């Protein structure tokens, strides 16, 4: 790991002042579970780390039916899981955070860091950049793309968005608060994620001198949620596909369904096709299956990841069935 200087400011303003206007020289450190690994591998080579764990206001979590759930960026996944209000009102969020498990990771990893973790694409992690370029050409289409994107993969980005929390947060209509030198802004979680189209562009709509401070999740009583993920190993493994679902049942039919896929595209992938399939229909296994098929109808698999189309379809189907079977 290359040497760097370390700052541990106590206020948000101080932290923002320490961040330069370009990527590279400075990184924000929270739990460090992803960043420190990336630094060891030479993927991130900051000259300065700004630790935001000492900033008290980033470590708050509040809930009220009116304001919903506000999660400070440095709240750990373990703290999220142990929170009574989250357990009571946001079971889908609990499922998603559980899926990110190992116990050790839950203890160190933060909610903000989970959203902003970098992709696991093995070309990226081996130093070929987010776009996996060699001599100006992506290594992915003809390479080992078994874990790469099946949607939104027209190029040049083929990696998959790794966040476990993003799909359910999007399904729940959550927003993130970002603070920079010119103040705060708010974004729907979906908008936090972007598909880079050129070298040097990041996969998040986040300026180098901005800090993600809080996630706000509306309270929507009566909404049923579920997350389903499929991976090779039972744990400590990245899903090959995951789906998050939020919906209501009214008079025996489904209302306002949200279906968001994870791990299948460079960004979390909402599926209006699946949502249309579900809206106003009576839930059934066949309907869930039809929604799964609709969700992957536009998939464009690469040479070695066709199987992920099937997995994404099944993840959507099972998440819907699981949501429907829940009370609430």
């Amino acid at each position: 790991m290359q040497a760097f200087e370390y700052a541990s400011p106590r206020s948000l303003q101080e932290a923002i002042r320490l961040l330069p206007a370009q990527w590279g020289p400075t990184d924000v450190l929270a739990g460090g579970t992803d960043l420190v690994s990336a630094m060891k591998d030479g993927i991130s080579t900051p000259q300065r780390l700004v630790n935001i764990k000492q900033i008290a206001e980033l470590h708050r979590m509040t809930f009220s039916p009116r304001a919903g759930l506000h999660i400070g960026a440095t709240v750990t996944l373990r703290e999220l899981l142990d929170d009574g209000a989250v357990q009571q009102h946001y079971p889908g969020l609990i499922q998603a955070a559980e899926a990110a498990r190992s116990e050790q990771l839950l203890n160190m990893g933060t909610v903000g860091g989970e959203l902003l973790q970098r992709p696991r694409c093995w070309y990226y992690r081996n130093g070929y950049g987010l776009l996996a370029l060699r001599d100006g050409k992506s290594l992915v289409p003809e390479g080992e793309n078994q874990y790469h994107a099946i949607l939104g993969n027209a190029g040049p980005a083929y990696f998959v968005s790794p966040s476990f929390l993003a799909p359910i947060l999007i399904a729940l209509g959550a927003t993130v608060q970002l603070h920079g030198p010119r103040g705060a802004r708010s974004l729907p979680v979906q908008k936090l994620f972007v598909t880079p189209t050129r070298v040097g562009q990041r996969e998040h709509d986040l300026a180098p001198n901005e800090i993600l401070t809080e996630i706000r999740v509306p309270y929507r009583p009566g909404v049923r949620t579920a997350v389903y993920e499929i991976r090779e190993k039972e744990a400590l493994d990245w899903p090959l596909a995951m789906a998050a679902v939020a919906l209501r049942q009214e008079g025996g039919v489904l209302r306002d369904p949200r279906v968001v896929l994870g791990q299948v595209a460079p960004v979390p992938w909402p599926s209006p096709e699946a949502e249309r399939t579900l809206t106003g229909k009576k839930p059934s296994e066949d309907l869930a299956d039809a929604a799964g098929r609709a969700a992957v109808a536009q998939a464009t698999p690469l040479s070695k990841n066709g199987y992920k189309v099937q997995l994404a379809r099944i993840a959507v189907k099972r998440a819907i069935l699981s949501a429907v079977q829940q009370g609430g």
Partner: protein
Amino acid sequence: MKIRVKINGVTREDDVEPRLLLVHYLRELAGLTGTHIGCETSICGACTVLMNGAAVKSCTVLAVQADGSEITTIEGLSGRNGQLHPLQQGFWEEHGLQCGYCTPGMILAAHQLLSRNPHPSRAEIRKALEGNLCRCTGYQHIVKAVEWAAEKVRAQAEHA
């Protein structure tokens, strides 16, 4: 950077480079080599220690992140007279180890489990140890070792 860390009940202060990892701090500065280095990227769990009672993988924690915290390593589990902790006894009695390289991390992950849940089911034991890989024991005896320890702790509590 100056840091102050209480390791196994003893406070120490050191001036460290920000890039020093907690695992190296423990092994090289504090001389506590029972915390092992395995995968180096927070997968295998051989480097697991307790930070303020919570299991963390010290290979991806900077020593400066541990500033002000209390750390427990495998060396801190035994009593002053060298009396083994019930988990340590359990891993021995139930053959929860072969080469032993993963063992300290396994024990500390199990320690967190028992401190949160003194009567875990087999499924809960397996879930708590998902962050720790073993290459040669087969896990079955590791589950039995944790069960043994939970039973022992319970018996000790009833006795006391």
